[in-house]
């Protein structure tokens, strides 16, 4: 346990809106200190639900029915709101999915970056500003002074995502949850952002839980991967193992379906319907 930053055990949840349908089925996963774990699945597979459960921001309609989320030896699920609030944003941070909506359009970048520093690291306004400037430089923004004074709409999507990455790493967290941080970006920008996250992560030794639906990204950035379908863990292990020797037919089919990370010229076979039928039978849904 000591080397694990995050351990999720037997996590189950149901959605009240869907008439009590299970959305997480006995999920377990671990993340080592300084490790990067990919959390993969199609829409509705439950990957975002896990991320939200860790952050404590599940919608009211989703109810956790069992399990533990152990962060540095403490169960997040049984914590009081105050304790959670002191951990979130300082020890655990989030890189959100859509840089368009994740920055307040009415406030300047500098002020938004400084918020976390002032609130979580008790910095004075002046120190926070200097620190924010440094952070912008760290995320390879060329003209940090100008960006500090800019409003979000004056920046490109990639720039905004850099700012959000800076904001996430600003508080020196031990765990960063990256919720599909590149989905909304151009493919070319995507790569730079992935490299940046990897760079920030390894320089600081931060653990990253990387939520995505893209196996190619997993291959680029993650050490280990957990594959979900319909709220159940289908396959789990070090990236290389899973991608090269998948156990499950679904994993195999997925890899066959996508352009292969090592052979982009191959693939694009649709996942056979039979695989889904088998999967559903296995999990126990009709």
């Amino acid at each position, binding site marked *: 346990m000591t080397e694990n930053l995050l351990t999720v055990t037997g996590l189950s949840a149901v959605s009240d*809106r*869907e008439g009590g349908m299970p959305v997480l089925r006995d999920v377990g996963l671990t993340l080592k200190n300084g490790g990067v774990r990919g959390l*993969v*699945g*199609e*829409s*509705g597979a439950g990957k975002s639900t896990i991320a939200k459960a860790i952050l404590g921001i599940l919608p009211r309609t989703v109810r956790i029915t069992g399990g533990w989320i152990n962060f540095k030896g403490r169960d997040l699920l049984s914590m009081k709101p105050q304790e959670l609030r002191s951990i979130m944003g300082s020890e655990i941070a989030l890189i959100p999915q859509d840089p368009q909506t994740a920055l307040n359009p009415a406030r300047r970048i500098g002020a938004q970056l400084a918020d976390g520093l002032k609130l979580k690291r008790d910095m004075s306004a002046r120190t926070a500003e200097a620190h924010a400037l440094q952070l912008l430089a760290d995320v390879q923004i060329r003209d940090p002074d100008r960006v500090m004074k800019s409003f979000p709409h004056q920046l490109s999507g990639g720039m905004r995502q850099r700012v959000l990455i800076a904001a996430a790493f600003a508080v020196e967290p031990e765990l960063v949850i990256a919720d599909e941080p590149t989905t909304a970006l151009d*493919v070319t920008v*995507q790569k730079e952002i992935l490299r940046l996250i990897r760079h920030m992560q390894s320089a600081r030794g931060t653990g990253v839980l990387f939520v995505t*639906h*893209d*196996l*190619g*990204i997993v291959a680029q950035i993650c050490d280990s991967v957990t594959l979900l*379908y*319909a709220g159940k863990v289908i396959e789990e292990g070090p990236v290389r193992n899973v991608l090269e020797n998948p156990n499950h037919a679904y994993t195999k089919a*997925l890899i066959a*379906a*996508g*352009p292969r990370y090592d052979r*982009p010229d191959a*693939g694009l076979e649709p*996942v056979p*319907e039979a695989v*889904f039928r088998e*999967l*559903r039978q296995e999990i126990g849904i009709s």
Partner: protein
Amino acid sequence: MAEPITITGPAAKPRRTPSRLRNLFAERQVLFGGSFILLLVVIAIFAPFIAPKDPLEQDLMLGSLPPAWLDGAEPGYYLGTDDLGRDVLSRLIYGSRIALLVAIVSASLAALIGTILGLLAGWYGGWADRIISRIVDIWMAFPPVLLSILLVAVFGSGVHSVIAAIVIIDWTRFCRVVRAETLAQSQLDYVTAARTAGFPRMKILTREIFPNIVPILIALVSLEMGIAVVVEAILSFVGLSVSSDTPTWGGMIAQGRQLIHHAWWLLVAPLAVLFTTVLAFNQLGSGLRRALDPVLRR
């Protein structure tokens, strides 16, 4: 580089919209507003059968009787009488005729004019849009109360003047919304597709765009009816609406106000009815808007 690798599959169940709860709430609003308005329409149509007395029948000997549950009431006058001895309940019932007439006719006419101009401005753009938008701007620069008082002064008082005043003032509400909505719709893919397919522009407007505007239009009409009821009441209140002894709610309010200490029911009864009606139209309108507007429903 190829498209990013994404996992897609038929497994995802069709999700219910996240606003199911809100829709329920909306339906409840529609239910309340709609059933009250329906009741009112029935009452207005069958007023002669429902009203216990002739609303014009006066008896100075029976003036200012209190409602049935108070001391000194006369049997048969459930909500009491006014200072001319006319039955308050019957006058309220007959008053709903004027209120609904004004509401329905003026809101429909305002919607008709506003929609046509709004569609033209939003769809054809260019100078048509500029002219229509400018007229709307100028129009909206008039204070509505003053303008309606002036208009009634021009046309003379009466129901037709009230309706004319409301239509002349409020068509702009429809025009603005319809124009914006048309503009938004015309930039959507299905319109582009239709245009590329070579459909005539007018046909696209009437067959493709207009049906998509109808829901918000219905909601607007309902809200407008509530406004019309209030405007009629205000004009009756200042004595510029129906001037005969035909009962109107606003006229009853103005009359009751003079006698508030003497016979409070003369003010409270029409106020309560006016208020409930406006509330019903508002609820119906906003409920419909929530339920029908694709943007709000999200």
